[in-house]
């Protein structure tokens, strides 16, 4: 039993993350906390094991109120699974679990291992206890984290966006495991953005928005569409119809554009990549012979589980990463030996996946961030001197055109919300009407409203005739925006699907490493 009673979180600088949140999760219930980013979900759940202390109100775990005195007793009862696992890579699974035991100087490895195996069996967590963590997939590592919590006696399990890093199959598998645990009496709370899985596996759903509980219901008594509306809330009425359409489409509606038709009509190939090989940061092959083409007015989505070479592929195309072999052509010109400045000069827009570290300088104001790629051009500078009036004027235009919510152009970028930071980046990158747009997880961490805005902008750019390469970890996003979808696994292309022929099952298989060709062959046989 987990209970929040009138919880409030007020930071010293006056921001309020949570206001008067009350909710109860009875024992054995599988509950999800849903909400746009910045709604306070993580803050709320981090209170359970004392990582965050509420300014007002109480949190109780099995009747024990969380405070400094009770924490030592509460911590083992609460399993907290973060997005980044806290495992020692060269250690075995069993060693990683034992590592967290306190108070025993000598350990009977055999006995402990037997006990762990018993727990694993009880909850059907298939893990090889002798395998080294570095050899495990992300999904397996997550199971190790869960097993570790259970072994220490966790009654309450809290998972922060557990499926964000998993393939669809792994995510399904996790859902089954968690259901089984709930059946055996564990209390489970997880955070998610994905309506699909919420509907499939949970008992109860609570929507948090702006630090308040705005909606709570048994899952079977609600619908995806209702949840999507609750997450966006009152803003919905303020959204223009096409944006609302995009949002609803996210929740499963259909819209088809005809990529094949465009290509058949002889649309010009703008991004052409041939047999590209690229290494990762450790200088190991990450992209191994990828071919792709993006035409004028087309969005090519790149799907794949994180870490299968998509990131390196994209970085190579914008020339942030050296090419080992192969060729990149942009607008018909050989770009293989270009540097980053050449891509900027040739109007290649790049939306990086880490807006706070790569996209913006947070302690620079908006105007400086707006011209960070352009300051050497007229009118932003003349004869080597910056023209602040032109820069301010430009920035004000961008703020207006892209609806960036800010007190003014001279506010530090750090003061903006994530969505507005991303709008500023979009504004900057799209301001020069680029013919090539590389969008690397453009909606990462954004709430649905802001994400819909980004989607709308990208679609508008496609209509304008830009060739867009879209990388995303979110399949819904890929399915929503792409004309064609390329799936990568292990540095190679598993094939390119037309969007109308793409379904989550096929994509999942491809993401897990089955080439499209062999899926089609099997389909033909059966």
């Amino acid at each position, binding site marked *: 039993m987990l209970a929040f009673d009138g919880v409030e979180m007020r930071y010293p600088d006056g921001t309020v993350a949570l206001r008067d949140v009350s909710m109860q999760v009875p024992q054995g219930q599988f509950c999800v906390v849903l909400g746009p980013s910045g709604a306070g979900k993580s803050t709320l759940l981090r209170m359970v094991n004392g990582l965050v202390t509420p300014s007002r109100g109480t949190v109780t775990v099995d009747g024990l109120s969380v405070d400094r005195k009770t924490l030592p007793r509460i911590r083992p009862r609460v399993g907290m699974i973060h997005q980044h696992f806290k495992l020692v890579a060269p250690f075995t699974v069993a060693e990683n679990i034992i590592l967290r035991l306190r108070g025993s100087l000598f350990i009977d490895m055999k006995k402990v291992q037997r006990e762990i195996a018993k727990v694993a069996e009880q909850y059907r967590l298939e893990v090889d206890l002798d395998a080294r963590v570095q050899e495990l997939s992300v999904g397996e590592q997550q199971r190790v984290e869960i097993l570790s919590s259970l072994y220490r006696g966790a009654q309450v399990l809290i998972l922060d966006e557990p499926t964000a890093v998993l393939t669809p199959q792994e995510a399904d598998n996790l859902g089954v495991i968690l259901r089984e645990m709930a059946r055996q009496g564990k209390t489970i709370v997880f955070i998610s953005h994905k309506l699909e899985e919420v509907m499939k596996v949970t008992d109860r759903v609570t929507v948090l928005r702006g630090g308040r509980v705005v909606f709570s219901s048994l899952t079977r008594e609600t619908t995806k569409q209702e949840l999507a509306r609750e997450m966006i809330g009152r803003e919905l009425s303020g959204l223009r119809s096409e944006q609302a359409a995009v949002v609803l489409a996210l929740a499963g509606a259909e819209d088809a554009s005809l990529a094949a038709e465009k290509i058949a009509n002889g649309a010009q190939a703008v991004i052409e990549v041939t047999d590209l090989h690229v290494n990762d940061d450790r200088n190991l092959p990450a992209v191994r012979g990828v071919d792709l083409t993006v035409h004028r007015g087309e969005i090519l989505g790149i799907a794949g589980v994180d870490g299968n070479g998509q990131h390196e592929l994209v970085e190579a195309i914008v020339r942030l990463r050296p090419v080992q072999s192969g060729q990149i052509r942009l607008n018909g010109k050989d770009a293989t030996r270009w540097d980053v400045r050449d*891509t900027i000069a040739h109007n290649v827009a790049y939306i990086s996946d880490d807006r706070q570290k*790569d996209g913006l300088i947070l302690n620079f104001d908006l105007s*400086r961030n707006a011209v960070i790629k352009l300051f050497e051009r007229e009118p932003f*500078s003349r004869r080597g*001197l*910056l023209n*602040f009036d032109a820069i*301010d004027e430009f920035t004000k235009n961008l703020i207006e055109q892209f609806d960036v919510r800010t007190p003014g152009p001279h506010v530090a970028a750090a003061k903006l919300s994530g969505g507005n930071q991303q709008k500023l980046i979009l504004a900057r990158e799209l*301001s020069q009407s680029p013919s090539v747009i590389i969008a690397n997880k453009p909606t990462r961490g954004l709430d649905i409203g802001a994400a819909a805005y980004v989607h709308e902008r990208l679609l508008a750019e496609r209509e304008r005739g830009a060739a867009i390469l879209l990388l995303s970890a979110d399949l819904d996003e890929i399915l929503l925006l792409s004309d064609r979808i390329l799936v990568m696994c292990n540095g190679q292309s598993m094939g390119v699907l037309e969007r109308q022929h793409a379904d989550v099952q096929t994509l999942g298989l491809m993401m897990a490493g089955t080439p499209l060709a062999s899926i089609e062959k099997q389909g033909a046989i059966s």
Partner: protein
Amino acid sequence: MTTTTKPIPKPERAKPRIDWRKLGGRVFQAVLSVVLAMLIGALLLLVSGTNPLTAYRSLFYGAFGTVDRFAETLVKATPLLIIAVSVSICFRAQVWNIGAEGQLILGAITSTWVALTFSSLPAPLLLVLSLIAGAIGGAVWGGIAGILKAKMQANEVITTSMLNYIAVYLLGFLVRGPLMDPNGFNFPQSALIKESLELPRLIPGTRLNLAFVLALLLVAGAMVFWRSTIGFRTEIVGASRRVAKQIGLSVGGTFVLVTALSGALVGMAGWGEIFGLHFRLIEEIARGLGNLGIVVALLGELHPLGMLVSSLLFGALVVGGNAMERNAGVPFALVDVIQGAIILLILARTYFFKKASAS
């Protein structure tokens, strides 16, 4: 929906780009640091049985009391100001160049060498040539650290301080060997430069000379620099190496640029010391100026005008400290204590004020 921006309309009027409230806060912090440091000094004076008021009065009078004294304060402030302006360029790029000492020495060496070697050239030409030589000497010495950082990721704090040692001993060798005054009774110093090369005095009877004007010009130059594209580039590299790489700026190139540029300016300070004050190469030419210049830069918040004020303060502390020693019988070491306290308070200030603004 179109996403192209409208052509930029003519700006209506230039708006002040100064955030007065922030500026006020920073000035307040700097002043507070100095006042607190003086209070600490006062405490020490009390303990040693001297009336702090008497001591500080003689310090103030010694620094500002007469035209002569004030001129001397400006003389002392000159190299500090030039050094502060130079290192602030590196600091804003987050390159911790503490090699001003060595760069100043190199500038002094090369400019003196040119003046002594080509003494037959007309004086104005030779003066300009020696200034350029000083700048090149400093630029090379600074640039070495920049190249090492760019190519081998060598930490500039280490390399610049090592280069300081090399410069000091190089100077010691030169004034005892190749550059020693043949008629100098074996003193470790070079021959005097031609009298016609001595910088004109701004106020007759004082030592205040043209080098101070050079320092003021460099302050103005720095104000322009921070409004230039190169200045912006420097700030981007300083603010985020990652973003700099994302937008294709050469981070290593910027390292070399800022270290060489700041070395060149410091080299000019060396030129000013020789041609304005000493007229020959002496061993004590740098005498701790490098490190003091860094403090001046930090107290001035790396802002050209802030550094102008803080260099005057430190010039006054040195000149007034001497007077205090003579007139009030307070050892000069007390000035060192006050300087040290200022440094500590500058460092502490960042911590305390961050805390205060957070709560």
